[in-house]
């Protein structure tokens, strides 16, 4: 089933008198449960694209549909609610809330949803802490964790609401190769188990092997909308 449908999306940034076109008419679709990677050179528009899919930025033109809903029709409250319930974010810079410990950071989105039974919340959070292997760090504050541990907390947080789509913009950029690998492996495992759609962008060829499909973006355009996976793994076109 088509979960994300992007048609003729452009994004213009106005810088003084000049306008920079970060996206120049992007078209592609994402199926439910895909593990998809967006790759491209620096400045090609990866972050811009993920931000638009994640409803934290708006396209200048074109249409973005999530589960058939045209997102430019939604107001701020509806977009916020969509982000809360349908989308999970994993940031390059982890973006944990400094004053909350591991457990509380992961719990945060669930508490925003209100009216969830306390027991269900606790067991869901604990299950995720176990999945990301942080059982020993439940009461730790972000400042007391390593980069990899922080990103694991972020992954758990992005998944706690059981979102349909998880977006990760260069999730491994601030991590060493080994840790990056383990983070991708973890994401992949969760993708298999929870059936959430994962879209991540990366510079790192090392982690590309986890992707089911790769969307190649160059200078604001998708250059291989539906490339066979094998093509990428060969290293061609890259």
């Amino acid at each position, binding site marked *: 089933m088509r979960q994300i449908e992007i048609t003729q999306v452009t994004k213009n940034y106005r810088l003084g008198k000049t306008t920079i076109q970060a996206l120049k008419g992007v078209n592609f679709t994402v199926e439910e449960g895909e593990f998809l990677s967006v790759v491209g050179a620096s400045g090609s528009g990866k972050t811009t694209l993920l931000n638009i899919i994640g409803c934290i*930025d708006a396209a200048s033109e074109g249409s973005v549909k999530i589960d058939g809903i045209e997102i430019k029709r939604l107001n701020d409250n509806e977009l916020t609610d969509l*982000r809360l319930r349908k989308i999970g*974010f994993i940031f390059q810079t982890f973006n944990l809330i400094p004053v909350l410990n591991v457990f509380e950071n992961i719990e945060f989105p669930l*508490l*925003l949803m209100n009216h969830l039974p306390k027991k269900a919340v606790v067991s869901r959070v604990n299950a995720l802490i176990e999945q990301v292997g942080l059982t020993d760090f439940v009461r730790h504050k972000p400042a007391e964790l390593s980069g990899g541990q922080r990103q694991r907390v972020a992954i758990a947080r992005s998944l706690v609401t059981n979102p349909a789509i998880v977006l990760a913009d260069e999730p491994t950029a601030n991590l060493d190769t080994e840790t990056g690998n383990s983070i991708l492996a973890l994401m992949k495992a969760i993708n298999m188990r929870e059936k959430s759609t994962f879209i991540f962008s990366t510079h790192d060829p090392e982690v590309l092997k986890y992707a089911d499909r790769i969307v190649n973006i160059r200078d604001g355009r998708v250059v291989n909308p539906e490339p066979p996976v094998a093509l990428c793994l060969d290293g061609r076109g890259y």
Partner: protein
Amino acid sequence: MGLLIKIAFRNLLRHKGRSLVIGAILFAGALVMSLGNGIISGMEKGLEANIIHQWTGHLIIMSSRQTNDDALFSPKPMKVIRHYPQVETALRNDRNVRAFLPATKGLVMVLNIGARKRAAEHPVLSMLLGVDFQHYRKMFNNSVSLLEGSGLGPDEKGLLVNVYERKKIYESENTWLLPLGTGLNRSKMPPDALSEIDTLETASSLVLMGIGDDNSALDVFAHVKGIYEFKALNLLFKEINLIDLESFRECFDYVTRAESQTAVSKENSEILDATEESLMHYFSKTALIEGPGLETDLGTDALKKEVDTGGMITATAHDAYNLIFVKLHHGQILEATLHNLNNRFQSNGTDARAVSWRKAIGYISDISLLFRIALNIFVFFIFFVAVIIIINTLTLNTLERTPEIGTMRAIGAPKRFITRMLILETLFLACLFGSLGLISGSLLTLFLSGLDLAASNEMMSLAFGGDTFCPVMDLNGMTHVFIQLTVVTLMAVLYPVHLAKKVSPLDAVARD
């Protein structure tokens, strides 16, 4: 909500320095505000108590023809209450009334000081309050303290001069008033008078002429029997000189036709007996005020004639009063009683109307208002500074936390979550440090009032509202400070919250 409180509280702890800056400002603000409020309330309460208990009572009744409310201090002539007996009945029948005292009040011109006739160009004007002195003392809790001489016995005639008035007369006339039959009391004399004590001119009597509104005033001779001051707030009432009712009425020609035919009363013959030579001297020379318009209707000629012919001065009207002081059982029933009495007077066609003490003293009640305005300007200034500093700190705080706020927004926190979080943080500081300031201010107020600081001069006693510094902190004052604090907090939080609302989820994605 639990989440919000947790985040807010931990953020405060995380930025301890910042929290302490805001806290200290709120603490100091609350402290100063509660102390200031306590002082002003103390002054208002003190003034009120002193004025009501020692000076005016709760209500003042005057003729309904008297158009100005501020009768007690206005130089405007007072109209006689035409239906005094009806008013008296009404007061006696009113359960709320505890006591009342009829009186007469008016402005007089001092014609002679002792035997010396004054020049007319610079009239000395004095305020007279005609009362039965014994009743007056009872009514007003011995509010009068006699410094020299004696008071007035029952039916005794004479004048009690305020210390200030004596000083005023000395300064303009170079004559030192001495109560009849007393000597100089050096301890009570100003340096000027002391320095010329050997040549000092003294006098024990005045010739007064009432300034009525119908020009029918008479000259009256009065002995100075005492020098007095009001025990509290004499500065406010320094203009007032006390005189017996008989003399006052004569002075203002409160006579009726019928009475003028009757034989002279005992008191009236006494006054004639008691006169010094100067009186005869005065009358025989028909000392009149030289001035346009005044000469004709003074009635002095008629008086002179009567004296010359050995005739008698007219008897005064016994029920002629122009003022009644009324004390109630307590202050809370003031408005209701005022209303009742006025309704009653109106429906019975009685020539009387009641006004509250506050209205009757006119501008003096504005003194506490002035103090309050001054305090409020001061408080406003503190407010202003506090709000600016807090806004500054909170704005910095918001800017610094932009990525954090952006993250919250990106992962699904609505705008109202962010605003609540920031308001809660400030509110928590306001509650904690504000209430600490409020409590400290209240305790300080209590402590200060416990010190029983005495006012060392009359200006101070005016500011204190009485003889001792007695700031009060009551629920009212605390509520006042609480509201002020809330306003400060809300104003200070407005702009930072507005900024935080503008943080977009995109700000989660760090960008330099």
